[in-house]
């Protein structure tokens, strides 16, 4: 690195005589190349370990067993059990994201207007911690609480309440929605809190001053300001539920078809021979779905933060 620096200084030190313009261009070009040279390790790593795998998924998704181009894998991903798993994954993500948005927003709003800095600090720290609580341990926590022999289940049975008497089961769709809330609500609080905090008291006062009732203030100012942030958060929650694997794997053991679990099954190799590449096609579908959701999130988040700037 040091040598490069020195050679650059030499170039810069050449007096600007004669054909100075082209010389300056050369030195600019060299400077630019030098400026990016420090990023080479990163780009090499990213190409090998992000680019390569992504390319492999896309490439194989359109490759038949015989090695020719085909759309059959993608078509197959939209039939039978594969299609069902896409549908139930979308349904799960939708249910989990919308309940997460509602409860997370309610808590975040309550905390934001409470005017208690201590409570705000606790909730913010706890949200950061719980939002990262997922995976296998989370599944076992809920098994211990409301599994068939869970403490809450057994405790409630003693007082005559059977949470399994209805259609609820921890090991199915309703259980997953409930368990996912454990990280979805905190995630919602983290992403929506800045928007709530960004609401200036001047806006409410100005609206009231201009003759608006509380309801009209919310209708014309409060809700429109919060909407991009809330919808944006919804997409983030949607993506996070759609892609989640570990908790679902432990809880459902494959009893309900979910796209990530299907892909997983195909990865581990229990697969009908002529459908080897359908896993890649489903992987591609997942990238597209999550990609769309994250694009919406990024766009809406940027919109929402534009209003927060001043």
């Amino acid at each position, binding site marked *: 690195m040091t040598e490069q620096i020195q050679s650059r200084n030499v170039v810069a030190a050449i007096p600007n005589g004669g054909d100075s313009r082209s010389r300056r261009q050369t030195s600019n070009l060299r400077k630019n190349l030098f400026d990016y040279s420090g990023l080479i390790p990163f780009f090499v790593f990213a190409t090998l370990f992000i680019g390569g795998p992504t390319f492999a998924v896309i490439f194989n998704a359109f490759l038949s067993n015989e090695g020719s181009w085909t759309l059959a894998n993608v078509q197959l991903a939209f039939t039978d059990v594969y299609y069902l798993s896409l549908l139930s994954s979308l349904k799960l993500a939708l249910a989990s994201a919308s309940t997460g948005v509602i409860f997370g927003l309610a808590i975040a709003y309550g905390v934001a207007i409470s005017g208690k800095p201590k409570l705000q600090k606790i909730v913010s720290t706890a949200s950061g911690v719980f939002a990262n609580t997922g995976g296998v341990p989370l599944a076992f926590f809920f098994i211990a609480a409301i599994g068939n022999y869970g403490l809450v289940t057994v405790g409630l049975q003693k007082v005559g309440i059977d949470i399994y008497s209805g259609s609820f089961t921890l090991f199915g769709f309703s259980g997953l929605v409930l368990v996912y809330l454990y990280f979805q609500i905190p995630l919602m609080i983290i992403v929506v809190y800045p928007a709530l905090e960004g609401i*200036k008291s*001047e*806006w409410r*006062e*100005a*609206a*009231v*001053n*201009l*003759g*608006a*009732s509380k309801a*009209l203030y919310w209708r*014309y*100012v409060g809700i*429109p*300001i919060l909407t991009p942030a809330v919808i944006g958060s919804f997409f983030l929650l949607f993506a996070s539920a759609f892609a989640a694997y570990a908790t679902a794997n432990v809880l459902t053991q494959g009893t309900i078809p979910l796209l990530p679990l299907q892909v997983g099954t195909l990865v581990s190799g229990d697969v009908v021979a002529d459908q080897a590449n359908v896993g890649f096609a489903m992987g591609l579908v997942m990238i597209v779905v999550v990609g769309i959701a994250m694009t919406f999130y990024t766009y809406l988040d940027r919109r929402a933060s*534009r*209003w927060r*700037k*001043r």
Partner: protein
Amino acid sequence: MTNKSGSAVEMINLQRIFGDVKALDGLNLTIKPGQLVALLGPSGCGKTTALRLLAGLDLADGGQITVDGRDITNVPANKRDMGMVFQAYSLFPNLTAVENVAFGLKVRGISEEIRIKKAKELLDLVGLSREANRYSHQLSGGQQQRVALARALAIEPKVLLLDEPLSALDAKVRTQLRDEIRRIQLEVGTTTLFVTHDQEEAMAMADLVGVMSNGKLEQIAAPDDIYANPATAFVASFVGAMNRIPAKLSSGKVEFLGQSVKYGGGSSATTVVALVRPESISVTPTKVNDSKSGTVIARSFLGPQTRLTVKTHEHGTHLHVDMASSDALELTAGTNVSLTITASTVLTDADGKN
């Protein structure tokens, strides 16, 4: 732009207590129709509280507010018809400039056609017709405050309330907008209450300046009157520059710098501080070293005026003396000068409050 006459406002013995702090301690204030009254004072003096009570954004613990003779003390804020301009950041970020201005008319159920027309007229009045469709984040600070002013005026308010609307702006924009707000206020004739901690702003814009301290009105008078005849030592010190000179009080005369001047009020102890404006002292070169002389130790050229700093021989006090620059040419640092008080009366303050 109709109510040329404006409304009359009266605040009677207003009280507002936060915890054990009396933000307002019996405030009495009368504003005549169409007047612009500035409330001036240091932060925490209660001026903003007075404004918020008038707007209904805060409620009084005692006293009464009337507008055109009607008691509005307990009328909710959204029924008061007061147009308020806040310090900053008060524009609704999700609405364009013209939608912001039309907001008050919208919540009053006025048809879109009429309210947009009216909003555009007002944007025109504040010189922002071309920015009508911009959002607040696309406007400069000064432009935002103009829109806020147009928005407050759009509802044809009984009273226009200005809560330090210029304090967040650059010095240059501040002066410009200050003059413009006054021009517009005179044009529409709305009774206006203006709150500021900047005396220059208050002096330049207001019909009457009310100086507040500790929740009370110390004095209310026309700007020149406040400056020339401050009623109390606080007002005298707060408004304009003031020299504090050690003095003695005896038989209705204030004695200092070897001279005696008629006592105008203030502290009545025997040992006091005389309050004298820099332009109420004149200097002439002298060779004599006595109690009424001093030495020029610094001079700063301020254009038409020059400000001298003089150290008195008597107490070593540093005094500021303002004089026409043409008269100050020879008064360089080190010059020995004799000091003459030209004021006919002086106020005094208690000693030791330097």
